[in-house]
């Protein structure tokens, strides 16, 4: 009964989305206010209907209703409650329902919080959002319905893939979807602006917070996925350049570019058509990502579905959304005029360089990810494009980006002076070079990886410090004045500084762990001591322990530093009988300066010896810490009063008194 209710609510949502897609759009074209206003209740009602539908599916999972085929295929009565709930989106059908739930959530948020939007823009934006919703709900209803029953009802379910039974991966999809489905709003805003034929500073101001919200959730989602891969998939790799990872990384890169170009539109009235194009690309890449993951066109660990009818359906959505968007762009964009004039060396110039590097690096990932597919279609030849290729071709762009970032960030608008900017950074660059020389001098292998990577990280972080010091007149004004200036800096500027510092921290983590990781592989018997990276790791033994829905062999390793006990870690080998799958759970002791990472392998010689892998991974956590700081920067920026709901209205009310005040002076 509950499943049927969910199914019915989804059908209602489909009908509502059709109404939302057409009525406000017609109203906006004809100037019928009543019709335009209908977008708001339709978007809210659509969200409520999908939320009910999602709640019904969740209920079926929670009570283990195995008469619902999806539950029987992906759940099990013994599974812990957390994974019964997160199992809702641990499969194709459920994750698509989560997709449309978040799509409708964003539509609903624009409907509710978009009170200050011009009626026409709001109506058109909601209509476009309705079209995307209608397409995806149709996709679920006709190709991926999660509510089908099965008969006879099985006694128990087939359980969720054990790799997914993990807190990191449980919360990875919701954040990821908040990110890349959230970009649908920027797309809808861009298409609405193209239909209206005008893009101005206020448009950029309305779009930026939505982009920011999507981008920061995508940042958290990608970081969670990477962290999960680090501790779950085996040897502590944190990025594999897997097509599925790339699918989420490409929209992230473009969203980051979009955030920066929208600033130029807002402040300087230029780069308008480019910003619109980025908005179209960002969501297009989200759709392409969905296609890659959901169609199974490039199979990987994450790809659950491989039914071609689904792939073809998504492909058509891609063609219409991307092709339609670009056609509209080609028709309308030439009408947009850039106004602000600026020199190549200026903040605008710096932001253009940022956009160039981010979009080209995204193109590199795109080409590398899809090359095997195109090559096979072209001449049937199978090739692979993997991590070594991306490391070699993607990294240079990030190095250029990190070098340019501090300089671009302190350049003034319109016209800057590179030597002046250089002078501000002179102390920082001396320190950076000293750090580089020191690390290079101390290194045993004379590899450039650590010196360059860490110097870059320091350069980016010092850049943030120099900019803040410069803006607060540190050392040039009394301390109280400096503090006052720091406190009065707009939140958006604080957000920028924090996010850039986070980027620096991530570079540091990546460079340090790539250059300084040490590894030990051996057969060890209980009592053996492994000396590694200044630690002594003693293998105490292994015991068998039953888990809730698995059996485990848990090893115990005591880690000594300078003869004292530093920590104890417990790596596990698990076996999930329902899915007949083994997994390894590394024993990790996380720290700010290093992770101790121990993996228990198979027993040898009848359990006398065990294969053991031990790693010391310096500063590994900085990779995710930096990502979280980046997302935090986004949150701080979002709280800026300029982006708050109604900010534009308030500014308008304030304007008259100041206009009166000017002539009085």
């Amino acid at each position, binding site marked *: 009964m509950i499943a049927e209710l969910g199914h019915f609510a989804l059908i209602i949502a489909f009908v509502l989305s059709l109404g939302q897609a057409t009525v406000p759009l017609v109203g906006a074209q004809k100037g019928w206010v009543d019709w335009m206003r209908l977008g708001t209740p339709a978007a809210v009602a659509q969200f409520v209907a999908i939320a009910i539908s999602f709640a019904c599916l969740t209920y079926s999972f929670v009570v283990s209703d195995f008469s619902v085929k999806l539950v029987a295929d992906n759940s099990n009565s013994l599974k812990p409650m957390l994974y019964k709930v997160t199992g809702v989106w641990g499969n194709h059908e459920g994750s698509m329902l989560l997709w449309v739930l978040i799509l409708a959530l964003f539509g609903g948020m624009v409907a509710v919080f978009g009170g200050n939007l011009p009626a026409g823009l709001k109506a058109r934006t909601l209509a476009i959002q309705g079209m995307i919703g209608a397409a995806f709900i149709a996709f679920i209803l006709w190709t991926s319905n999660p509510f089908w029953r099965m008969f006879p009802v099985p006694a128990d379910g087939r359980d969720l893939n054990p790799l997914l039974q993990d807190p990191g991966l449980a919360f990875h999809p919701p954040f990821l979807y908040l990110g890349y489905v959230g970009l649908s709003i920027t797309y809808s805003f861009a298409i609405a602006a193209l239909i209206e034929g005008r893009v101005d500073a206020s448009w950029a101001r309305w779009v930026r917070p939505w982009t920011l919200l999507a981008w920061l959730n995508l940042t958290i989602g990608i970081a969670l996925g990477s962290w999960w891969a680090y501790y779950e998939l085996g040897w502590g790799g944190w990025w*594999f350049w897997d097509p599925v990872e790339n699918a989420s990384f490409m929209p992230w890169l473009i969203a980051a570019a979009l955030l920066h170009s929208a600033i130029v539109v807002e402040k300087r009235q230029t780069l308008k058509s480019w910003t619109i194009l980025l908005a179209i690309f960002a969501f297009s890449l989200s759709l392409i990502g969905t296609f890659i993951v959901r169609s199974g066109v490039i199979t990987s660990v994450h790809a659950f579905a491989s039914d071609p009818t689904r792939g073809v359906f998504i492909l058509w959505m891609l063609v219409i959304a991307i092709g339609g968007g670009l056609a509209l762009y080609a028709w309308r964009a030439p009408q947009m005029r850039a106004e602000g004039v600026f020199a*190549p060396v200026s903040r605008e110039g710096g932001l253009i360089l940022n956009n160039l*590097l981010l979009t*080209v690096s995204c193109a590199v990932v795109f080409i590398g990810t899809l090359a095997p597919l195109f090559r096979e279609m072209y001449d049937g030849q199978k090739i*692979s494009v*993997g*991590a070594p*290729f991306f490391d070699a071709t993607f990294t240079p*762009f990030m190095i250029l980006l990190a070098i340019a970032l501090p300089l671009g960030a302190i350049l003034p608008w319109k016209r800057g002076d590179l030597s002046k900017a250089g002078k501000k950074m002179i102390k920082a660059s001396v320190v950076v070079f000293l750090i580089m020389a020191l690390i290079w001098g101390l290194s045993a292998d004379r590899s450039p990886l650590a010196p360059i990577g860490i110097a870059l990280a320091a350069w980016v972080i010092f850049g943030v410090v120099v900019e803040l010091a410069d803006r607060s007149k540190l050392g040039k004004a009394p301390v109280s004045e400096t503090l006052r200036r720091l406190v009065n800096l707009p939140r958006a500027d604080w957000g920028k500084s924090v996010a850039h510092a986070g980027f620096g921290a991530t570079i540091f983590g990546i460079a340090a762990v790539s250059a300084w990781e040490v590894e030990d592989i051996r057969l060890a018997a209980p009592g053996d001591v492994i000396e590694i990276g200044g630690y002594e790791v003693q293998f105490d033994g292994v015991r068998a322990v039953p888990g809730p829905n698995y059996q485990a062999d848990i090893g115990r390793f005591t880690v000594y530093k300078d003869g004292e006990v530093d920590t104890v870690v417990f790596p596990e080998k698990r076996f999930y009988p329902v899915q007949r799958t083994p997994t390894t759970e590394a024993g990790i002791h996380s720290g700010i300066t290093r992770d101790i990472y121990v993996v228990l392998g*198979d027993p040898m010689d009848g359990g006398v010896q065990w294969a053991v892998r031990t790693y010391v991974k310096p500063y590994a956590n900085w990779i995710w810490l930096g990502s979280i700081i980046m997302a935090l920067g986004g949150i701080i920026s979002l709280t800026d009063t300029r982006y708050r709901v109604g900010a534009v209205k308030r500014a308008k009310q304030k304007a008259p008194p100041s206009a009166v005040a000017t002539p009085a002076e």
Partner: protein
Amino acid sequence: MRWLLIALSLAIASPAFAVQPDEILDDPELEARARDISKDLRCLVCRNENIDDSHASLARDLRLLVRERLVAGDTDDEVYDYVVDRYGEFVLLNPRLTGSNLIIWLSGPALLIIGGALAYSFIRRRPTEALAARPAGLSDEEAKRLAELTKD
């Protein structure tokens, strides 16, 4: 798809352990080279996993093969050639810098140069054009309102 299923069932039947202690060569220099080569070779029955990380038994065979060739005195390039002769280019995670692969390798730098040139010409071209044109489609009142809206 069938080979994938076979591979999966093999992997489940014999859960091995990436590089196993018994595979490691006595000569640390040769072993380091073997590890580096292994990171560039794809485990043929896995998805996007190199043989150094892979649990599959086929990956183990390849790891042993690489070490065998190195011990026999092959250079790194000879090892790659040997493996490609037997398994095809699909085995290389780092596509070779030849033929149509050049497109994949060179598109990044090429796009950077083209994009840079376009961006530069956009910045340079703008002053005269912007001076000639008034903000398009905006009445005086709208322009004033816009100025108010964008004021910080």
